[in-house]
């Protein structure tokens, strides 16, 4: 047993990147790195999901390729994206680092429902895009139809952006503006961010 007191500092992949989001007062797409979040990969079959209720505040009732945003309590937002018949990505937006506690809560709430849970909080990071040109910026690397009919609020899917695999979520609008959350693996973070920023400039969404 050691007697040291130190707690290691948390640093995301953008820690040492200068001028990450040069603020621009002339942009129709704002690109920002989302706050650290807790994430779990939840796997269970559809019948189990029907019996699962809302474990730890996560709503799992949606159809494939859609997401649910809900609030468990005043402090912590909950987002669940159903990526396949038996696969959910659970995201808890919270500053506190309490993966063990949330996992325990999920496990307790799920009880006898057959499931598996894996902590992937640090595997992914998220970049958010908002503004009237957000979909156009995403379409510089993502081939999906992001029109309101094909990709309305509440859509979430695993897809590609340029040469990176991403999970693309269309969250609740912010005012009149769309909000997209792009989840990618940590090591692709700088590539993703630089690509989005470059593309936004190139199509005139950031001047």
């Amino acid at each position, binding site marked *: *047993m050691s007697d040291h007191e130190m707690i*290691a500092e948390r640093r995301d992949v953008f820690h*040492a990147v200068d001028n990450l989001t040069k603020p621009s007062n002339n942009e129709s797409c704002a690109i920002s790195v989302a706050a650290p979040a807790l994430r779990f990969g939840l796997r269970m079959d559809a019948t189990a999901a029907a019996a699962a209720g809302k474990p730890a505040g996560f709503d799992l009732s949606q159809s494939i390729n859609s997401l649910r945003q809900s609030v468990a309590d005043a402090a912590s937002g909950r987002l669940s994206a159903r990526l396949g018949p038996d696969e959910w990505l659970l995201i808890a937006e919270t500053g506190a680092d309490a993966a063990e506690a949330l996992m325990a809560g999920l496990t307790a709430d799920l009880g006898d429902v057959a499931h598996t849970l*894996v902590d992937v909080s640090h595997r992914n990071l998220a970049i958010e895009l908002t503004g009237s040109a957000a979909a156009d910026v995403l379409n510089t690397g993502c081939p999906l139809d992001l029109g309101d009919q094909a990709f309305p609020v509440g859509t979430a899917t695993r897809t590609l952006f340029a040469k990176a695999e991403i999970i693309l979520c269309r969250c609740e609008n912010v005012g009149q503006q769309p909000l997209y959350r792009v989840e990618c693996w940590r090591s692709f973070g700088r590539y993703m961010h630089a690509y989005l920023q470059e593309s936004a400039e*190139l199509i005139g969404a950031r001047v």
Partner: protein
Amino acid sequence: MSHANRLAGRGRIDRSKPIIIQFNGREVPAYHGDTAASALIANGILHVGRSFKYHRPRGVLAAGAEEPNALLDIDRGNGRRDPNNRATVVEAFDGLVTRSQNHWPSLKYDVGTLNDMASPLFSAGFYYKTFMWPSAAWKRVYEPVIRRAAGLGKAPTVPDPDRYVHSHAHCDVLISGAGPAGLAAALAASVDGSRRIIIADEQNEFGGTLLHDLTSTIDGLSASDWVAQTVATLSQRSNVRMLPRTTVVAYYNHNHIALNQRLTDHQSNPSKGMARERLWQVRAGEVIAATGAHERPLVFAGNDRPGMLLADSLRAFINRYGVTPGRNVVIATSGASAYQAAIDAKSAGLFVTIVDYRKRDEIGDERLLATQAGIEILDNHSVIGSTGRTQVTGLIVAPKTASGGVGDVRTLNCDAVGMSGGWTPVVHLVSQSRAKLVFDTALDAFIPGEAYQSERSAGACRGVYALDECLANGHEAGSGAGAAPSAKSSEATGFEPVRLMPTNRQKLRDKAFVDFQNDVTAKDINLAVQEGFQSIEHVKRYTTTGMATDQGKTSNINALGIVAGALELTPPDVGTTTFRPPYTPTTFGAFAGQARGVLFDPERITPMHDWAVKKGAKFEDVALWKRAWYFPQGRETMHDAVQRECRAVRESVGIFDATTLGKIEVVGPDAAEFLNRIYTNSWLKLKPGRCRYGLMLKEDGYIMDDGVVARVADDRFHITTTTGGAPRVLGHMEDYLQTEFTDLKLSLTSTTEQWAVIAVQGPNARDVVAPLVSDIDMSNDAFPHMSMREGKVCGVPCRLFRVSFTGEAGYEINVPSDYGEAVWEAVYAAGQPYDITPYGTETMHVLRAEKGFIIVGQETDGTVTPEDVGLSGLVSKVKADFVGKRSLARPDLVAEGRKQLVGLLTLDPDVLLDEGAQIVDDPQAALPMPMLGHVTSSYVSPNVARGGTGDPQQSGDGRSIAMAMIAGGHSRVGTRLYATTREGFTEVQVTKPVFFDPDGGRANV
């Protein structure tokens, strides 16, 4: 004189915005709205280039994308330069710098003109016939000379400073072309707002031919006003995306269409951030091709002099740009449409004569209109030739006789000629879509037949030429409600196809050009037929007709007609060539898009990457990862750095970034059974907290991947894979889980990036790590080699592995990625009393080779079994089945003499073998010498004694070591063989593949 050829009061140019462009260093005044071509013509510069093969003076032939002659080198400043731009599509802006091409020393005096005089030599197949012999001369003489002569323009020498961007888009209807048919289609398709429409046109303005139509009216408006009104209407509709300066370049499967949009080429000072071009990939529900038609030149001797244009292009220059190449115009035609060009030229104040190939009774109402305009018409005439050099001075014409010959010739003095040999629908896009093309004899053209994809065509590209019909056709294609726009037009259509104008001067006919860009004459094509070529595909390759960058837009049908005529076949019997993307030349930048520099490929970096950069590490690429390769100090060489790092790990402690190893979390009640079926060895009895090395085969029995696996809990395993193998292994496992082992309940989750992995290896590893760890008993008894504990390091959760890929006692600290760098720094600080040494992948490779640990992909190559690399002990004899088990019994996998892993020690310890070097038994053997195998790994080890094994501090100071795959290798241990070197051979001792600490005691301390 500036603007000498400008016509007063005409054109869409903005005379209030004068600009100056440069041509070959000369200042050329122009107006906003001009193209480079119209600016040059306005100033009487008609000779703008030299032809490809004969270096003949050439001028502008067309007014649009089909231009074969007027290719300019364009310089937009700051290294933004490229050759072979069609002057007719280059928008003029103030400061644009243009130069002519393909001449030396100057445009006016060009030694290449000798080719023209020697032209009888350069007939079809010239290269094939001439440079047959001696074959040795190809390499040293013919090829270098031909290469210098070949090609047009000079490639830029500096990297392209422009930026390019890709975009994806989806729409219900994509309309290619914004002429009358395209605009009518867009209006109709977008009217109810339910469908998303994209309409693209290659020109700066929408309108197509309407932009130079001064006489027609549509819905009571002038053509120009109707275009303006329509563009305004469409831009009000939120479901319409309008893309000017955008060429639909390619049509692929599933209505996947590529469009290239030029964003800044027309600007003097493009804003810095903007892309030069935007390549759109559109997935369209339906495509409407409204791509128009190209006019054909007439084929007669000297049909290529500057000042001789296509008739409707001449009309476009006069009406749209207010310029003319000359005041004395002859319109030579075999059809009706050119009469409107003549009438418009006349109304512009030019002197105009019409020479019509058709007999008087074959000419329609257009005759009366021209006569009323005061134009003289020579009907039933052929064109024999032309005079002039850098500008046409006369057209030699003669009446046709009843016998098919010609009568007395006369020369019509002129300084501008408009030619019309009929029209060719632009079927490139529909052909690319794999629609059938059918030959319409009445139209003398291929037109779109049955569609292959969801596509239809409208207007001139399907042979519908009359304006009113074009509008109706477009309206119908747009499947809109309401009435189609209705036009009143005096333009006439219809023409009589003529392949070669009759002549009485056969000699002159040598220079009757069919393909202007590749300098292919009618004589060349006839010669090809005479020599036995019958398919148009063969004639094309033999003569190069249609193979220039214009893809034969003005020449293909004329060439086909000449071949058909010579063979006495119909054109469809000769066939048509295949249209391939891109429709017009497209920049490399557009294809590259954003993928240049750091965005070329993702560079995956670990949490400790920035620390390694600061420490001066050199990196190597492993898959997409950047991995620290070695950490040179000061001016240390790679060799010295690696030797130092290798010693430090064995003597004290090293720290290594192992984050990139693939990791998969296997969770579920059947997790152990799943691993039991995937790996060759047994997993059911592995206790939680313990690790095991696992070997994985493909179905064919060959090694696929390996790695250490820890059992975290009864129902949870933490698997590691090779760095490059991670995606492959996860895919392999998912494949079996979803298709073969559907009875098992478990899930697979990639956790490669959840964990930063800090390997701390060496005799002092425990002393460094233990003070940072809480909640884990670090004693050797409580936490032995090949075990895993969960706890906290530096106050954050960790999975602490006691494993070793070095042979030393050591740990791999797994912490959530965002903590990786801080924990690494803490370990590094804690290691200072022990001179902790960061080491890279090269040292890792050396250390594992000293221990004889294989690297999948280095010792193995996809054809290696566990037995081959001495790992048969890892293959369970008792398990009922596992992936690859049956294949291990295949006769060739159990045969004698398979290549097997051995160690090699050179007799001279200072000789380092090359990886890949061949191993032979007898270097004197006759050729081809039997080869036994090859070296797979070879390093200089500072830790292996010169004698071979043991401690170098006692018996010497390091030596070379190698691993090899050798036929029957296991039975050759103890013998001597030879390895190839760059000079010859060197003798080697075959050993077991372990050079250091053969008992493995050091890892267990």
